[in-house]
């Protein structure tokens, strides 16, 4: 990055603190704005549209729903993925009519997972205590094969009716999706890792790609805050595209300055 422009340098160096604060400000404003206007129209997301039906079907057959966040957890780089995936899983747990099995391969997800289950339970209108068996943790590694192996075994031994896997997955997802295909269980999956995402795209009943998993709330539970996040994301995206175009234009005109 051989940029010499002082503004760009400033932006680069302080972006990690300035940028989120600006976004936070924007987000606050836009959720206020969205709240005052009527709901936003969003493009169709087949996966989020299929989810309620999938859950319903599982419930109708008396089968539990398998939810998983994979390797996402509060371990630093994955923290925000873990929060986003907790949100998506919460939406699913809330809509599910039957029992839910939540699996994870990151232990920091356990408290979040219980929070998700408890909250969903409240939202579904049942108070009372939770049993520990609905949340299962399996040890992790760079690829969580303990999770994948155990989940694939569990999916058949517990007669799972539907699977929603959103979070951090690598190619180990293939083991789980294979098990789902084998037992004819519907599956929705998305991952922030590209190799896991490739497997998810190929094997999920409806495609769900990358960032789409961060915004489940906007489709499944369109509160002003959830919608504002989507608006913010779109805005940022266009800003990014503009920045990219400007940089490309400058580079093109400067005769193609060699990158650093």
């Amino acid at each position: 990055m051989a940029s010499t422009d002082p503004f760009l340098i400033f932006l680069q160096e302080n972006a990690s603190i300035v940028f989120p604060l600006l976004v936070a400000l924007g987000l606050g404003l836009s959720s206020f704005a969205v709240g005052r206007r009527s709901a936003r129209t969003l493009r169709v997301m087949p996966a989020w549209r299929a989810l309620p039906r999938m859950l319903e079907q599982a419930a109708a057959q008396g089968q539990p729903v398998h939810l998983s966040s994979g390797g996402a957890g509060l371990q630093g780089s994955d923290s925000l993925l873990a929060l986003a995936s907790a949100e998506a899983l919460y939406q699913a747990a809330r809509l599910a009519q039957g029992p839910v099995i939540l699996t994870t391969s990151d232990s920091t997800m356990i408290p979040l997972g219980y929070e998700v289950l408890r909250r969903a339970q409240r939202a579904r209108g049942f108070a009372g205590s939770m049993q520990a068996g609905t949340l299962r943790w399996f040890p992790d590694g760079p690829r969580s094969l303990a999770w994948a192996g155990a989940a694939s075994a569990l999916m058949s031994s517990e007669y799972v009716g539907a699977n929603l896997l959103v979070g951090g997955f690598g190619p180990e997802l293939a083991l789980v999706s294979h098990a789902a295909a084998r037992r004819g269980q519907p599956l929705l999956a998305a991952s922030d890792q590209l190799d896991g995402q490739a497997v998810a795209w190929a094997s999920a009943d409806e495609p769900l790609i990358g960032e789409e998993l961060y915004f489940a709330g906007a489709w499944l539970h369109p509160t002003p805050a959830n919608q504002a996040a989507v608006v913010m994301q779109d805005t940022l995206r266009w800003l990014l595209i503009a920045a990219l175009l400007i940089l490309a234009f400058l580079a093109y005109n400067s005769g193609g300055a060699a990158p650093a």
Partner: protein
Amino acid sequence: MASVEQIGLWTSFLLTLMVFSYLLGDNLLYRLAVFVFAGVAAGYSAIVIWDGILIPWLHDTLLVPNATLDQLTLGAAPLLIGLLLLARSWSTRGDGLSRLALALLIGVGTAVALDGAINGTLIPLLFDTGEGVVAGNLDSILLPAGVICTLVYFQYQARRVPEGAGRRRRHVQLLAVLGQGVIVITLGAIYGAAILTSLTIFSERLGFVVQQAQVLLPTPTPTPAPGA
């Protein structure tokens, strides 16, 4: 009495076969192997973390002779946070305090993740993609074009059309379709590469099974191609 190594070889040989029995269908042997594995992995994680992290930490803080109050507080904080999170798993009592513990974790995690997303991904990729453009080099122009199409594909907001459906503007849609093509090609290539890797790994396992079978099973020594 077989030696320990012998038992080990047999164990790994049989476990490999048990896992591969999955190819015949989900079965007891496969599940057994997987659950043994999950248990062993959990045991090792516990030992390694205990030995490698917790014990040194305690020695540096709580167990220091004549520890200061600062050291004691610092040493106890993670344990307290851990306990509060643990409490959260079992009951809703003390919800507020455990929420604070979670907040601390989320706070630090958010910072690290934001730093990573911005300094690790956003800025390097943005500048590298944008500044990589060289006049006259088609590929260097196609690259940012592809990135832009991909980004546009995700565009969420749409216009409401009379039937009530969300529909994106026509030019956005055109870019989005191109972007979808780029994404599908990307995922396909990654998928193909993943197959290649798993082929490599599987070939290693096959070689292992064959070699072990030759060593462990009482078959005559295979004859290498005779010379002359």
